[in-house]
């Protein structure tokens, strides 16, 4: 029984989630077969003003109204506790209380990095860092294979909508950067390293560390002109080039003053200069200990074909 149970359960889970509307409230996701869990927070759909009129950054203009469909967002940034199970199949096998199944077994895992990708900052409850956008999406794929639930990266618009939590100010709590200390790990208070998630106050919608600690991946290509031509509903500017892509929220290295809900950060080829190999790793930025990810789960998932296309898009060679 033990040997055949898992594929049947997996099919059952997939069927369940494609047929039944889940209840739209906070939940704790257990990673099957392991003691690891993470929390998801519902973000109601709505409209908001994206961008900033008062900012000195031209790429945050014009402010434009955007409609966003409902989704869950990770209450916290993804931590090494979960990410490392994905990183190393042998570790996952060692931890798992049951066979992981052929589908999960067959998933391509990240190349194991030649450097210590924690950069000496520790793992437990600390954000997973240094992954490429491809690596972040493949983590979502692994979670999908494990849970049957479509997890993905936020779009840039979803991220800003969630960070703003209904506000139009620089930060969700107003405009005073000194208050940020209560909510975020920035260059002023982080001691130069990532901090355990969830130790500061959350934003009004229940998201911890949405500013600071680590930059968070989005799915979008950076285009400074995008706000001039953006669609009004669920906008996305899909990534077609490796650089620059949108990352959001600032990190433990960012001064509070430079962080805001509207600020558009980007990835940089320099983050890979320390990679001694060619082609450079599709998985890791050895010089970016400040980039992490936060999950999104749309309330209404796309079709299985679209899900498959999202997860299996081939990475672009980097050299």
């Amino acid at each position: 029984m033990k040997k055949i149970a898992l594929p049947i359960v997996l099919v059952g889970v997939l069927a369940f989630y494609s047929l039944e509307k889940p209840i739209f409230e906070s939940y704790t996701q257990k990673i099957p077969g392991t003691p690891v869990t993470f929390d998801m927070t519902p973000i109601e759909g709505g409209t908001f003003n994206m961008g900033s009129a008062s900012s000195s950054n031209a790429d945050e203009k014009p402010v434009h109204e955007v409609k966003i469909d409902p989704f869950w967002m990770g209450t916290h940034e993804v931590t090494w506790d979960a990410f490392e199970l994905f990183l190393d199949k042998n570790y996952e096998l060692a931890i798992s209380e049951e066979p992981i199944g052929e589908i999960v077994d067959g998933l391509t895992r990240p190349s194991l990095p030649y450097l210590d990708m924690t950069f000496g900052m520790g793992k437990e409850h600390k954000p997973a860092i240094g992954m490429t956008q491809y690596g972040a999406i493949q983590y979502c794929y692994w979670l999908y294979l494990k849970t049957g639930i479509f997890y993905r990266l936020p779009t840039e618009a979803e991220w800003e909508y969630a960070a703003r939590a209904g506000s139009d100010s620089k930060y969700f709590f107003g405009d005073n950067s000194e208050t940020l200390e209560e909510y975020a790990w920035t260059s002023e208070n982080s001691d130069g390293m990532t901090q355990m998630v969830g130790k500061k106050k959350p934003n009004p919608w229940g998201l911890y560390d949405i500013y600071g600690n680590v930059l968070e991946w989005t799915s979008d290509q950076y285009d400074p002109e995008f706000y001039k031509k953006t669609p009004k509903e669920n906008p996305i500017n899909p990534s077609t080039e490796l650089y620059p892509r949108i990352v959001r929220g600032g990190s433990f290295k960012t001064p509070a003053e430079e962080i805001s809900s509207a600020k558009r950060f980007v990835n940089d080829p320099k983050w890979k200069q320390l990679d001694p190999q060619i082609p450079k790793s599709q998985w890791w930025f050895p010089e970016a200990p400040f980039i992490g990810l936060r999950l999104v789960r749309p309330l209404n998932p796309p079709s299985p074909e679209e899900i498959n296309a999202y997860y299996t898009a081939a990475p672009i060679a980097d050299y």
Partner: protein
Amino acid sequence: MLTIPQHLLRTIKPRNDNFMKNTRRDFIKTSALATGGVIAANSFVLPGAYAAPAETHLKLALIGCGGRGTGAVFQAMETGHPIKLVAMADAFRDRLDGSLKPILDKYGADKVDVPEDRKFVGFDAYKHAIAEADVVILATPPGFRPDHFTEAVKQGKQIFMEKPVATDAVGIRKVLKAAEDAKAKKLNVVVGLQRHYQDNYRKTIAKIHSGEIGDIIGGQVYWNDGGVWVRPRKPEQTEMEYQMRNWYYFNWLCGDHITEQHVHNIDVANWVKKGYPVKAEGTGGRMVRTGKEFGEIFDHHTVQFTYEDGTVIHSECRHFPGAANRVDETFQGTKGTAYLSAGNHGVLTDYTGKKLYEHDRENNINPYQQEHNELWAAIVNGEYKFADAENGARSTMTSILGRYATYSGKVITMDEAINSDVNLFPDTLAWDATPKLVPNADGFYPHAVPGKTKTV
């Protein structure tokens, strides 16, 4: 006597007239001195850098076409000097092709001229590729380095070679011999222990050596992380091909991770201590990485290295997924402590907690690039500046000493270790030849057993 021809230098540095005058003058001076039997300190006589009169590029050959070798070619090209990749060698044709494609894509046919008859495949490919070049990059798995380095020196080439430079004492002795020959021939040799080309290490260790934290009386060096790749066995592979594809897990090719990776940190200890240990004792084994796909190497080693002045340096390396990672070096002096890591850390602190020095971690140049910037500048300027091979060999030997100690479970002296005749290398290199280590009937490889295994 061969030199860089003057027309080549003109092509290389058209904008710097002073440079050319100096070069010409020094060249004449050096030639005169040489004929008088005296070698000038900054001799411009570079036998390996000769190019035929019609050539305007320095010719480069890549030996070992993996990701690291390909990366090194990129770094050579990025120096901006007139370099042309003219030959490549690898045991496997697919690896060679996979390496050539990105190089050609990025740098184009002007800088990459590797026709079919200069693609060399197999165990003796290196000899042919070396012959085609002025400068060679040696980046195969380390077990081959002693023979490849010896050949490159014999052929009088300028050399960049990756660390580690051998996997056993037999290989180390070859490298030390060739290092002497390279010095005699004034061949620049840079070894890819890139911390020597990284600013935080250079500056912080210079301050340690100037006495900023007193005499160094202890230290700890670490490479603790999750491990590396496996390439699953394919039914058509001979045992030799399987081991070559999975070279990390076989000591004749890799030397175990205490040598292949941890040599970096052990080398930093030697650099800080300005010497090499006289003995080692330690513990190691296979604890979490026990499958048949993991060959013979251990997944952890803990070694105490004792230096001539009695200082003990603690060394630790492990491949434990899920455990805490640590890759860095710490030292204790009579007046303070040092912290160093490849993430551009370099911090000196006194025993009241006051920071004596902190290296600025922003905007540091990539040390992999810096190795090539400095090497190629020396070559192009006709200078003899780099003799990294001896330290590369002695630091590699230190890591091998550590392995000899953990594998045997005995206290091993450096004298015993460096004279060890335990030769891991196969008697014959051929796809149908049998390596010295073969799996048992269940597919598992025998591995060292402390107390039983003989290493010296």
